[in-house]
């Protein structure tokens, strides 16, 4: 994002798209065939869903500077909305349900974004908790949302788009990957438009932005809307591709914090940061627990190990914030720069995206 703007048509052809292109080729061409079900189902699919949610929150918090602690609520709205569209309007193609669910989440997000017009900082952050608690309450309270299931649980139907059924671990992964790739691309495009620049102006100095003629009200609500739209879509992936059975309790405050963690750890105002942060938050605890069990499993019981991991993760988060408050992405960039200083020029250009 730091490169000078250039025409899109030319942009597509430059080597700066090489790295993401290679990543995508590996993600599509190699991973589904080489990865085990465990890797796909338990690591990559939740990683994709969380990364998308983090991307959504990053637009709001990282780019537009509005802090939200209610992300999990919008995940829930997306999941339950898609479920109901799918259930009640049978003839609706799934992709339409998906987008409609995002739109519902966007609408709810804009409502809960209204306080941003008067509040900022932690006052705003805490008031977004209202969304968190209200949505969970409403989904539990009104049984209509879960089709009168006495337990408030929804079972997601199998994924199928235009006659293609995405069953099995690889299918669900590929579906998620496609949705995430498309939405990410759209988000990048959006940030290059005037709207994106307005977001950043709003974040950097609200009053100055106002003086410069940025429509504050519209921009703020738009930020909440777009962010919630993306988080809502992530919620659909979470419910339909990853867990496949969800209950309102799964979208609790801890989940909201997790998403916030992802963008802070990964790097605010960075698309890649959302992905790096999500990888860290999803993969690292799993690795740590497997490592702990393998090395110390015979010495301590699983409870002791688990609590030690909690301490390690907490300490690591603090350590990371101290070492690099701008997040993993800044760390990675610094590292890459050091390596690249000794590499040919074309390669250098190809890796900055």
């Amino acid at each position, binding site marked *: 994002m730091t490169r000078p703007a250039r025409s899109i048509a030319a942009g597509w052809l430059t080597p700066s798209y090489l790295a993401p292109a290679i990543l995508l080729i590996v993600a599509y061409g190699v991973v589904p065939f080489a990865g085990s079900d465990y890797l796909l189902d338990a690591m990559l699919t939740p990683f994709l869903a969380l990364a998308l949610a983090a991307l959504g929150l990053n637009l709001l918090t990282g780019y537009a500077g509005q802090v939200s602690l209610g992300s999990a609520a919008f995940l829930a709205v997306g999941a339950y909305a898609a479920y109901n569209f799918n259930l009640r309007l049978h003839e609706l193609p799934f992709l339409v349900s998906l987008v409609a669910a995002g739109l519902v989440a966007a609408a709810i997000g804009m409502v809960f974004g209204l306080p941003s017009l008067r509040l900022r900082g932690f006052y705003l952050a805490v008031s977004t908790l209202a969304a968190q608690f209200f949505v969970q309450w409403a989904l539990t309270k009104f049984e209509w949302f879960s089709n009168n299931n006495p337990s408030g649980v929804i079972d997601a139907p199998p994924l199928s788009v235009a006659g293609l059924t995405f069953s099995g671990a690889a299918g669900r992964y590929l579906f998620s990957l496609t949705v995430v790739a498309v939405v990410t691309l759209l988000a990048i495009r959006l940030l290059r438009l005037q709207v994106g620049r307005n977001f950043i102006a709003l974040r950097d100095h609200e009053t100055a932005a106002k003086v410069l003629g940025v429509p504050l009200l519209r921009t703020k609500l738009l930020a909440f809307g777009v962010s919630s739209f993306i988080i809502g879509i992530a919620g659909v992936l979470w419910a339909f591709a990853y867990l496949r059975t969800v209950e309102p309790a799964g979208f609790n405050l801890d989940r909201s914090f997790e998403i916030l*963690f992802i963008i802070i750890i990964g790097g605010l105002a960075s698309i890649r940061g959302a992905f790096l942060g999500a990888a860290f938050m999803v993969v690292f605890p799993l690795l740590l627990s497997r490592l702990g069990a393998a090395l110390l499993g015979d010495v301590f019981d699983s409870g002791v190990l688990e609590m030690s991991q909690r*301490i390690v993760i907490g300490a690591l988060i603090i350590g990371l914030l*101290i070492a690099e408050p701008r997040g993993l992405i800044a760390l990675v960039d610094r590292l890459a720069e050091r390596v690249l200083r000794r590499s040919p020029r074309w390669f250098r250009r190809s890796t900055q995206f």
Partner: protein
Amino acid sequence: MFDYQFFIEVLVGGLLSGVMYSLVAIGFVLIYKTSGVLNFAQGAMLLFAALTFVSLAERGVPFWLALGTTLVIMVALGVAIERTVLRPLVNQSPMTLFMATLGLSYVIEGAAQLLWGTQVHGLNLGIDDVPFELGGVLISQFDLFAAAIAGALVTAFALFFRFTRTGLAFRAVADDQFAALAIGLRLPRVWAAVWTAAGIVALVAGLLWGARLGVQFSLSLVVLKALPVLVLGGFDSVTGAIVGGVLIGAIEKLAEVYVGPFFGGGIEAWAAYVVALGFLLVRPSGLFGQKLVERV
């Protein structure tokens, strides 16, 4: 026919519950006021304090000794947090600091359970909780006691900040960090004092809440009760925390009893936020919060 007696009973019960919210909120305010950190680890500190006290008491340590030991541990914890977490992060954005305290809460929760186990404990402070009636209105003895303790704590802090050098430094830092720094105040020392104070608040709140809920993991969730109080009262006002807490307590209970039935009950979880928000739309920095001045 409106049942006034019942109304007053709910109101009084709510006001007294509110005092308990204030107690947690004060811990937040102390730290926010001086360092701009929303310390989410307050709940974990509360759990840690209560768990340490109860575990000592259950091992046969006499009450006052256990209290003293826990106090010393909490002070040490407060100072250690300031040294290892806050000082290296000085001048970072509020969001980064908030996240660091979230990480901190993981560490403290893990350590508390690793040290003392995951068992639940009862905590008896020796106050009977049998109700008594005052003009037909039921009043809880324990709640009155808790209110008295909270009152004493706030008075003690007020005196401390009014009449001691550290207190004066605290107020100077709260008013203007840079000015305080310019006249040669040592910020780290003030911060250490503040984190110590937060540790003491955590201990008192932990014991009182622990006596109500039992000492167990869920104790750390009481911070959620303090957040709407902060929004209503202002993040940087001790008075706001007290008045806000009492108001939120009363509003929450009245809403649940009188408005709840129209929604099928259980609205307490968000009613407090809605009320606090509605209020903020009128006064964006809370009841007693400092007004922000914008400059271009």
